């Protein structure tokens, strides 16, 4: 009896030690480093202690954006200017019915942009501010995870993009996106509205339109970045500096400098999607 108990305690003790030591040992084995509380910059701009944020050494680029809501509040009409710049460059059709509307970037009030933040006893001004919402180009994007054909994918610069040629229109990505940033072409985007006017007022012949039956969203202007231009919305903001775009993984980039100095928030951080769009309020 006694012997049995001693054996039991020994085994229990050994397994406890093994249990504690094993993960560290395995981590060392597979990653060649011990993780734990080491500061490594994480996902470039990842706030510490956010959900289950792992500490990883950033590799390659990760484009992101800072949106200064105060500036959008100050410069009236700037929000619309951004939306128009984006939508006209990308041939986004203008459906008037909100049910089938397509939008890449648009303004929302605080309560709807930040649904998981408290709305109780906030300053009056906050409720009048225009929050530009768009695809967050998440580092752990649910839409990319669920797409059955890799029609939506993350490119080497951390942008979540659409390959319209491949999309089968299953709309799984729309169910997966926690930000409502994706739009579907419910009918021909080259069609006409009720008054007979084309839905795309003036086609940008440098960029394609879409066809019915595919999903679309903000592409962080991948086609413009590739040729050294700024995203259309950032360009529309111009000298106001209401939007700052750049590489979050480059510590010397303007965006990294701004993020270092300013307090910013992200949309729905608790979901672990790691958004790349930050807001200064």
């Amino acid at each position, binding site marked *: 009896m006694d012997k049995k108990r001693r054996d039991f305690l020994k085994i229990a003790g050994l397994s406890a030690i093994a249990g504690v030591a094993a993960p560290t040992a395995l981590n060392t084995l597979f990653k060649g480093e011990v993780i734990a509380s080491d500061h490594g910059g994480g996902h470039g701009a990842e706030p510490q202690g956010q959900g289950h944020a792992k500490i990883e050494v950033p590799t390659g680029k990760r484009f992101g954006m800072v949106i200064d809501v105060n500036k959008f509040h100050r410069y009236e009409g700037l929000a619309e200017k951004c939306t128009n710049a984006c939508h006209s460059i990308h041939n986004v059709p203008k459906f008037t019915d909100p049910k089938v509307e397509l939008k890449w970037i648009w303004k929302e009030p605080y309560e709807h942009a930040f649904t998981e933040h408290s709305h109780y006893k906030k300053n009056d001004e906050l409720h009048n501010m225009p929050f530009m919402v768009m695809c967050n180009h998440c580092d752990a994007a649910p839409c990319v995870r669920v797409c059955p054909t890799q029609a939506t994918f993350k490119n080497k610069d951390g942008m979540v993009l659409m390959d319209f040629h491949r999309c089968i229109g299953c709309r799984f990505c729309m169910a997966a996106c926690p930000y409502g940033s994706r739009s579907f072409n419910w009918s021909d985007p080259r069609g006409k509205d009720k008054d007979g006017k084309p839905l795309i007022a003036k086609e940008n012949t440098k960029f394609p*339109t879409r066809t019915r039956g595919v999903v679309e969203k903000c592409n962080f202007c991948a086609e413009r970045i590739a040729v050294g231009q700024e995203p259309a919305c950032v360009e529309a903001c111009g000298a106001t500096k209401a939007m700052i775009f750049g590489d979050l993984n480059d510590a010397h980039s303007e965006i990294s400098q701004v993020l270092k100095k300013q307090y910013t928030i992200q949309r729905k951080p608790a979901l672990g999607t790691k958004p790349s769009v930050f807001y200064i309020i």
Partner: protein
Amino acid sequence: MVKKRENQDFVLSLLQERKGDAMYDGGKIIPGLVIFVGLMTYPIWSGNAGTTPKPVKPTGHEKCVKHKEFMRTSHMVLLNEWRDEVVRDGNREQIHIGDKVYDKSLQNGCMHCHTSKKKFCDECHNYTAVKPYCWECHIQPKETI
């Protein structure tokens, strides 16, 4: 062996019972088949395959990004490769042919030289009865006529 036999029986039962080896209505079926095959293959043996298409070549450009024979048969393969490189890999490296530079793009590359979809693309596509849906999204150049 026994199993095989059973399977055969089953297949036969599907075809319903037939007695003897004679073909019913053979006198109608065989000539019918001959006429059918004849009509179907008419374009091949008659030597009349319609007029060969003559797509209009661009002026001021001597060479395409690949040689003529390749482009004639496999331009769609090249377009698919370009699509994946540009859209998915972000590889927009331009193509240098002689002193000319071309973008890997249908809308912003090919169609800059081949300025008419009607006189270039449609010529052969109509002839071969294929309907690629490139232009449902890509914007075709304005036809000058």
